[in-house]
């Protein structure tokens, strides 16, 4: 009886347990090696640092579920942050007004990715490689390469820096987004069709899925998430830099893969991605506390990406 129970464990659950075990292991490791890791202050800071990545990685979960990858998210995110900051600075209007604009910019950039890649029939990863430079360049052109600050006072920034029960407000937003996304991922027809495309694009076409349309919607969604991340980022930082967002795409992809999303499409889990992000951010935070230079942090990020994907391939080979 018990045996059957263990066997019944789904792939997703197995992955979740592994990620949780990973989080536990690194947490214990860092608690032992550094004095500051296991403190309340660090925990709260960690939570706040995770917000942006959580949102972007959640968006990436949808992209990976269709078997694609988007490496322009960091650039889209940063473009949105800077545009919103510039608009606030130059118009003097409330940033609340510009927040939807930021999300729209993200969605529009994503839509462009989607339209180009579906009309050319090329994988999104190649197209987004090109567009990431377009978006990053656009950011530089708009800002002139300078940081945008001095945005004045607004309830928008108060919200971003404020806390409820000691936890930064943006964290609640992020968790809310994750919860809604997870529910939507499981329940909605649209997401089921995303997964169907990722699992077997041909067969999904044969069951009436509008493959191209869904792929574009998917990219728009991703862009929208990047825009939302930008809004939260601006709310907390009240400033923007032209170099922000670099490397975010890599972290997001790593998190999705670590959380059980298959790079070949067809499976992805929002909660898993959350676990993946937590794991990565804890490792980054721990390395920083241990006084490791940025060199190690950079290298670790790259290593984690290759490692996560390679592990998945190996596991897949064994079971399938």
């Amino acid at each position, binding site marked *: 009886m018990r045996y059957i129970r263990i066997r019944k464990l789904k792939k997703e659950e197995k992955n979740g347990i592994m990620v949780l075990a990973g989080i536990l292991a690194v947490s214990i490791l860092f608690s032992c090696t550094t004095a500051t890791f296991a403190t309340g202050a660090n925990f709260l800071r960690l939570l706040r640092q995770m917000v942006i990545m959580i949102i972007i990685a959640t968006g990436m979960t949808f992209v990976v579920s269709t078997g694609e990858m988007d490496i322009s998210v960091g650039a889209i995110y940063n473009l949105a942050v800077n545009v919103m900051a510039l608009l606030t600075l130059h118009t003097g209007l409330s940033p609340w007004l510009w927040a939807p604009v930021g999300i729209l910019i993200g969605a529009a950039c994503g839509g462009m990715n989607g339209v180009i890649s579906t009309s050319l029939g090329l994988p999104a990863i190649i197209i987004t490689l090109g567009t990431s430079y*377009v978006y*990053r360049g656009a950011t530089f052109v708009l800002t002139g390469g300078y940081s945008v600050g001095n945005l004045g006072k607004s309830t928008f920034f108060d919200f971003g820096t404020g806390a409820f029960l000691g936890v930064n407000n943006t964290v609640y937003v992020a968790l809310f987004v994750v919860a809604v996304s997870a529910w939507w991922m499981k329940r909605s027809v649209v997401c089921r069709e995303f997964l*169907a495309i990722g699992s077997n694009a041909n067969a999904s076409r044969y069951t009436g899925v509008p493959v191209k349309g869904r792929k574009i919607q998917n990219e728009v969604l991703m862009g929208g998430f990047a825009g939302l991340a930008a809004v939260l980022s601006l709310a907390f930082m009240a400033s923007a830099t032209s170099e922000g967002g670099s490397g975010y795409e890599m972290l997001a992809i790593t998190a999705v893969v670590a959380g059980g999303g298959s790079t070949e499409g067809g499976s992805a889990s929002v909660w898993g991605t959350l676990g993946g992000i937590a794991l990565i951010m804890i490792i980054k935070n721990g390395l920083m506390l241990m006084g490791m230079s940025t060199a190690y942090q950079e290298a670790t*990020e790259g290593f984690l990406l290759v490692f996560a994907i390679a592990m998945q391939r190996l596991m897949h080979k064994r079971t399938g």
Partner: protein
Amino acid sequence: MGDKILEMRNVCKSFHQVRAVRNVSFSIKRGEVHAICGENGAGKSTLMNLIAGVYRYDEGEMLIDGESYRPKDPAEARGRGVNIVFQELSLFSLQTADKNIFAGKEITKAGLLAHREMKEKTARTLQEMELAIDGDKPVAQLTIGQRQWIEIARALADEAKILILDEPNSALNMYETEILFGLIEELTVKGITIIYISHRMDEVFRIADRITVMRDGSYIKTLEVKETSVDEIIALMLGKETKCVFTRSASEKGQVVAEGKNITVSGKIEDISFCVRQGEVLGLCGLAGSGYETLLQVLFGLVRMESGEIVMEGERIENRTPLDAMRHHIAMVPSDRRDTGLMTEWSIEKNIAQSLLRITSRRGLIHRKENRKIAEEYVRGLNVVCKSVEDSMVELSGGNQQKVLLAKWLATKPKLLILDDPTRGIDVGAKQEIYQLIDKLTRQGFAVILTSSEIDELTALSDRIMLFKKGRHIETVQAGASKGEILKYIAGNEGEAQARGINIQEEGEKACAGGEGRSGAGHEPGRWGKRVKAVFKKKEIGVLIAAVIVFLGFSMMVPSFLSGQNVAVILKQMSILGLLTYGMTFVFCAGEVDLSVGMVLNATMAFMALLMTKGDMNPWLAVAAGLLLATVLGVINGLLAVAFSLSTIVVTLGTMSIYRGLSLLLNGGRTISGLPEGSFLIMARVKIFGISLIAWISLAVFFLLLFIFKNTKFSRHLLLMGDNGQAAGKMGIKTNLLRIGVMALSGFLSGLGAVLTLSNLTSADTTTGADYAMSAIGAAVIGGTKMGGGCGSMWGSLIGIALVTVIQNGLVFLGMQSGWRSLFIGVTMIAAIFIDTAVERRPVKKEKQLLNLQQ
């Protein structure tokens, strides 16, 4: 004659408990044409694949010239003189005829490709075949028939002893078939033995010396052509007992459900009309490619018809997409479970729910309880053996998978059910269940359109069978027609002379971006004219002109742009970026991408600088160590990609970050300066003819690489691999080694770039190289090298990098910051890909029009 060239003794082959070939023993005589006949699934193709080394046989033995023969791959088979022309073409579509013919066995002289010899040999072979094939065109631009010839020529160029032709003329027209037969005769005179597989009896009887009949994977009999007849062969093929013992119970024929009127899809089917009633099974039958498959696709909205109409229950409908078809209560069970039928990793429930999504969902949300209920109901109803509906598809047997596929579509409650070969690859018991199911469905009043690869099945299950041949509906036979009768209709030879080009099945074949337009013009320009034209057709010229215009434009707008100092800056920048671009060109040709080049460059710089300052190493030794490091980093990229079968773009995305970390680790986040004076570091300041030594070195490397690109097996194989990796494997090209090799080359060139940069800057900073990868990728793409592989141009890359550097430099002069630069690179890269794709798509359309005209 008389001696045996190939002998088979008790050869067996099984695939997952299905015995495809059982105890086959017979022999083939030297110099004969030996035809193999049998129905679909009789084991002919499997046997041929065993002989050609695609599969290895499990038991028994084969002898060639009395020596034991058990090839482990097609390359070994070719080495022993056995060549096969596959049913599905395995050509490199972007390459010209000679590159295809000599793929994997290029003629070399002193290690270099002997272009002229190969071209001449190709021309001679094609001439011998009396074919007018343009040897300079990529094969994708040839007709299917011509491609088939290239495939045959490839097999012949090997000095084959045995040539296997697996339905070689299914894509040839009458005229070409005649040439093929002539060729076969010639070959036999030369002593080449031919094994010939065809469904067309008349041809078999015309060219074969002996015929071997196979049935159900077993050897039946070998007969001399002179002593047998078509009827005897068909009788042997069918066997005495029929395989399909099933009689349908009578069903009430109701009103007409679906009706098709004069449906035409040019090049596929012509003027097809049909109707199906409630409770009726309409069978469709024909040889592969005869058009009935297209009719199914039209009905289900997968292919648009050009004229004609479909009427469902008296109402005219239009199926633009499968979704439309589903709305009109049409369901199609596709023939290929793995490719188009099921999500094999998913559970039964999810698979069944997939077609129900839009039916049961409310407000865009999946109604899981209802789906589960329906799934369980159908799983029970169809007797699917499983623990629960949560089992994943891979755990099920083929028969049960098929039942789930049926359930998935029955659950949509269709009125018209299309079953495309519903019993393919499942065992006898499951087949019987499916027959009973079809019987039950018709009694319930479903209208069914059925196809099958087994004619028995069709005759047993259908009320009427429509027979297709070459895109036309040639005959309708009633229930109870015999198999022999049907075979005579669909495989017989009447009406042979019609419709050329009907068999064109492949679409969207990609042509090389080279822009070699179709030179179909009637007049012959002089040799010079031709050459000039050829030069102007090249895409590189377009890029060159663009570069010149940009250069002139900047010189006019900005006076200081042309100053000696600035030109020197441009040249240096171009020299360094150029090295990376050349490497990227090789990488692209192989179908890979290397994002890590800039970081490899930066890390190598830091490494060399560190060795020279802290390590006090001789600068030249440091250079050697640096180049080694860069190559190793490249090899790591390749190894990771090969070991985990990942795409290099993902791998290098990760390693890019790792190498940046490495670089930061080496320089500690600071610029390393204070390098020793002299040695290679003065290169940047040595001028020859007023131009820095750096530029000369880069140019020399360019020419060396150009030479390698054109003249070595390595780069030829890279191109072939990038074009069609699978076919490259079949031709015995070691793809894994090549992937690692090309990444190593890219790493090495980045290292060389690092040496030049270091000499230019005399210090190793932390930021150089950050956007080099993108510049290199952009330049290569602009220069006409395809991302995705198979075609590239070194000259194009040279001009491309010139254009990119000039623009980047000019933008600085115009007062635009680095933002414009990356904007520009991104936009040009995407634009270049756009143009590439547009050029690719054009010739295909033309070809289609051409075909229409011919009809």
